[in-house]
């Protein structure tokens, strides 16, 4: 391929790095939106026109949210070029005879334009298929503004704190503006921004566009200036390896700090202990530390929520005395609960990459240093998964415990008014539910939760390994699945609008569940055979996997019974569907060593 100018070459590079992510954002938005609409169409009561319309309106609003959500996460594929660290990712251009403004401006403009184009494309398609007038330009313009701020925050600084604060601040402002505008007029019996009002609600004044242009210019100016500084005397720029090599006193990255937090000596008595030490230090303890920190923050926020709640309430009443008649509340007591939920999600998200796959300049690989240690692949996979799972589980338990002891201390008014529930009664409900279980059922619950976490960690690890080894095939398979979802969504929508022949959706769903269950069984059998053929698995490993799977299966059945699910008399499809999770531990036990073997011996 002949690239005629540096500008074309740089645009080509940005496209090359981000094209898969762009395809995913487009596909997820369209499929997610259509699935949301289709689900609402399926479950809305056809015999009650008003109710039907309300539910479909809600579905359209949720679909629009789904279209916007992918744009809130920025462009991670660019950040991967420098291992996910903040800073300008295209630092290799520093040595080219191109002005910094161009080096910064081109990819910035490209990413902003693509974000807006992805939204516009998805919204247009949903407009055509659903008939709802999804807003186009106004939302696309704000998405552009958010993208440009996100890019500026990530590229301008190497300081993670500044980056996070900027992003949180920008998102919070966007959130408050959206809430203020969309809920300005209270609409009885439904939410405040139904689709019939979208044309009015999203008709931004011209000043908005002026603000967006100003934000774009300011972001570009700041980024260009800061990247110029990085270009002049930056250590990262000088390093072809893109390794942040700061002096000990400087910023070395949050994860690196956490890795160095526990000065445990490496045991030398056995390879297993040394490997556990390595995985704990580099992969487990950082997650646990983050979990414990979040748990402490939740507890501290709970401690200050009482006085803060009172102060905010007093200020609200002083500003609007009539609010006393409306039982006004503040949302302060809810914040620790929301933070706890967010913390659980953060820890679950950090459960990924148990195999420590590295990324650098678009290349994903396992470290040759670790891959050449004399340790069997199956043992290595199991050990890595267990260490990571143990730390993730410990982090989740710590956060849960923090929330548990915090609940009785939270103000009740907000909970009662919003959800008609008292925080303390939540504890009672959980306590009673657990107390109602027999000892065996409680043990089953513990087994299901613990093995569930291991399966979660294994799923992330396996997916990462497969994406590293077979990236194109995995992407194609995932896109085909999305396409399948899209077709089902479209069929459901077409059926709901009376277009075309009647589609037996129930039969398609039943066939899908059979195919999925068969695929799990066949894949497990095939991988077991391959594992033995390649001498990857030993008899001991296979027996261990079968034992764990049997224990999980028994625990799963016990939990189903405890939940009142009776398998007797259940249709075969549902029966298979309910029992299929029992196969997951076995599948994870054979898939994990196999996938690690694929990246260790490529």
């Amino acid at each position: 391929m002949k690239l005629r100018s540096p500008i074309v070459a740089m645009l080509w590079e940005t496209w090359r790095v981000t094209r898969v992510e762009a395809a995913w954002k487009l596909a997820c938005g369209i499929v997610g939106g259509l699935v949301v609409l289709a689900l609402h169409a399926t479950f809305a009561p056809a015999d009650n026109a008003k109710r039907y319309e309300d539910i479909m309106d809600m579905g359209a609003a949720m679909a629009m949210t789904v279209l916007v959500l992918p744009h809130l996460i920025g462009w991670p594929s660019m950040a991967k070029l420098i291992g996910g660290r903040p800073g300008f990712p295209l630092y290799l251009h520093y040595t080219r005879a191109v002005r910094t403004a161009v080096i910064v401006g081109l990819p910035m403009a490209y990413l902003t334009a693509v974000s807006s184009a992805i939204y516009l494309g998805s919204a247009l398609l949903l407009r055509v298929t659903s008939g709802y007038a999804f807003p186009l330009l106004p939302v696309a313009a704000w998405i552009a503004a958010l993208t440009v701020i996100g890019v500026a925050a990530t590229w301008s600084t190497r300081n993670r704190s500044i980056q996070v604060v900027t992003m949180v601040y920008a998102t919070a402002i966007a959130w408050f503006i959206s809430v203020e505008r969309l809920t300005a007029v209270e609409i009885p019996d439904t939410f405040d921004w139904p689709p019939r009002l979208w044309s009015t609600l999203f008709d931004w004044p011209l000043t908005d566009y002026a603000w967006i242009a100003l934000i774009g210019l300011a972001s570009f100016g700041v980024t260009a200036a800061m990247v110029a500084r990085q270009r002049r005397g930056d250590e990262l720029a000088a390093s072809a390896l893109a390794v942040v090599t700061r002096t000990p006193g400087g910023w070395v990255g949050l994860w690196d700090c956490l890795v160095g937090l526990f000065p445990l000596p490496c045991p030398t008595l056995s390879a297993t202990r040394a490997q556990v030490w390595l995985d704990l230090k580099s992969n487990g303890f950082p997650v646990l530390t983050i979990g414990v920190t979040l748990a402490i923050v939740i507890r501290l926020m709970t401690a200050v929520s009482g006085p803060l709640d009172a102060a905010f309430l007093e200020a609200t009443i002083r500003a609007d005395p009539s609010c006393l008649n409306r039982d006004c509340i503040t949302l302060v007591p809810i914040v620790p609960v929301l933070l706890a939920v967010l913390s659980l999600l953060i820890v679950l998200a950090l459960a990924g990459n148990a195999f420590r796959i590295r990324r650098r300049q678009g290349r994903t690989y396992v470290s040759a240093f670790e891959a050449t240690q004399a340790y069997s692949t199956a043992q290595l996979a199991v050990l890595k998964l267990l260490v990571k799972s143990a730390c993730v589980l410990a982090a989740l338990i710590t956060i849960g415990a923090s929330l548990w002891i915090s609940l009785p201390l939270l103000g009740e008014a907000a909970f009662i008014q919003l959800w008609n529930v008292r925080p303390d009664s939540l504890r009672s409900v959980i306590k009673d539910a657990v107390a109602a279980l027999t000892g065996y059922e409680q043990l089953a619950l513990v087994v299901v939760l613990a093995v569930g976490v291991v399966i979660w960690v294994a799923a992330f690890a396996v997916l990462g390994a497969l994406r590293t080894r077979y990236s194109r095939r995995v992407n194609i398979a995932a896109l085909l699945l999305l396409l399948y979802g899209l077709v089902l969504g479209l069929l459901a929508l077409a059926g709901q609008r009376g277009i075309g022949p009647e589609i037996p959706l129930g039969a398609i769903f039943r066939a899908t569940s059979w195919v999925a269950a068969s695929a799990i069984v066949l894949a497990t059998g095939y991988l077991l055979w391959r594992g033995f053929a390649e001498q990857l698995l030993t008899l001991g490993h296979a027996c261990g996997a079968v034992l764990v799977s049997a224990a999980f299966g028994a625990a799963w059945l016990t939990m189903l019974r405890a939940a009142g699910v009776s398998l007797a008399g259940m249709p075969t499809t549902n029966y298979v569907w309910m029992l299929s999770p029992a196969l997951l531990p076995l599948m994870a036990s054979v898939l994990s060593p196999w996938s690690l073997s694929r990246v260790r011996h490529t």
Partner: protein
Amino acid sequence: MGQTVVDVNDLSRSFGGKTALESVSFRATAGQIYGLVGANGAGKTTLLKHLLGLLRATSGAVRVFGLDPVRDPVGVLSRVGYLSEERELPEWMRIDELLRYTQAFHPTWDASYAGELLETFALDPAKKVKELSKGMRAQAGLLVAVAHRPELLILDEPSSGLDAVVRRDILDAIVRTVADDGRTVIFSSHLLDEVERMSDHVTLMHQGRVTLSGPLDEVRRGYQRSRVRFAEPFEQPPVLDAALAMEGGGRAWSVVHTGSLERFHHSVLALGGVVVESRDATLEEIFLAHAGRSRQQVEAA
């Protein structure tokens, strides 16, 4: 003949549509030093990665100590020391942690030898890997590769990042010590003088193939460089028996050739020329002759 340590038979490997190794066969015996020579992209690192089981063969077989390194990584890697080209080490580890971690995998770890090397390289055990310079990183990598006294030491471009003193004095000494103990060293390099200085055997790779392999002395004896003068000028290089590469123009040509000198003399005489001077070719001249020849073959194809 020593015991066979490495046996690579008809190994081929391709990445996507690109062939990286094509029908490569290679054998290494105990107590010898093997130098792999070739230009960038010749397939040296790919071959070494196959010996470590980091890559699977598309076809052919790889045996190290009689074992398949992919199927039995523990059996192979516990007896191998490896220094990668990228000098990849965990950035967050301190040098002392790196030593302890590696020690745990090798019961044969020689703590006093490790301490001796640590002192020789003047490495600070409390320093983290990410704080090391490129050269220090190479030294740390070399240290953990040799301190367990491996039966097979694999070094991928070991000189890269090392200064001249370390390269000449320390690296040579380490490699020689390993071989003198009856163990085997395989190293890749594009520095021909280094290969000539250090190795007992040389294997020349070009575009994924082994173009030449054998004991260094035999290889050097098998090639001569001769200066030739003809009565009539030649615009194109004259066709001479056993000639691999020719430089020059008109009446005076310089030729790298194989076979007996007598046969070469006859061939020159037949074209009305005389051999002015002959000597053993250097490894660099042999390498360039082979590389140039392959390039011509590719261009002709």
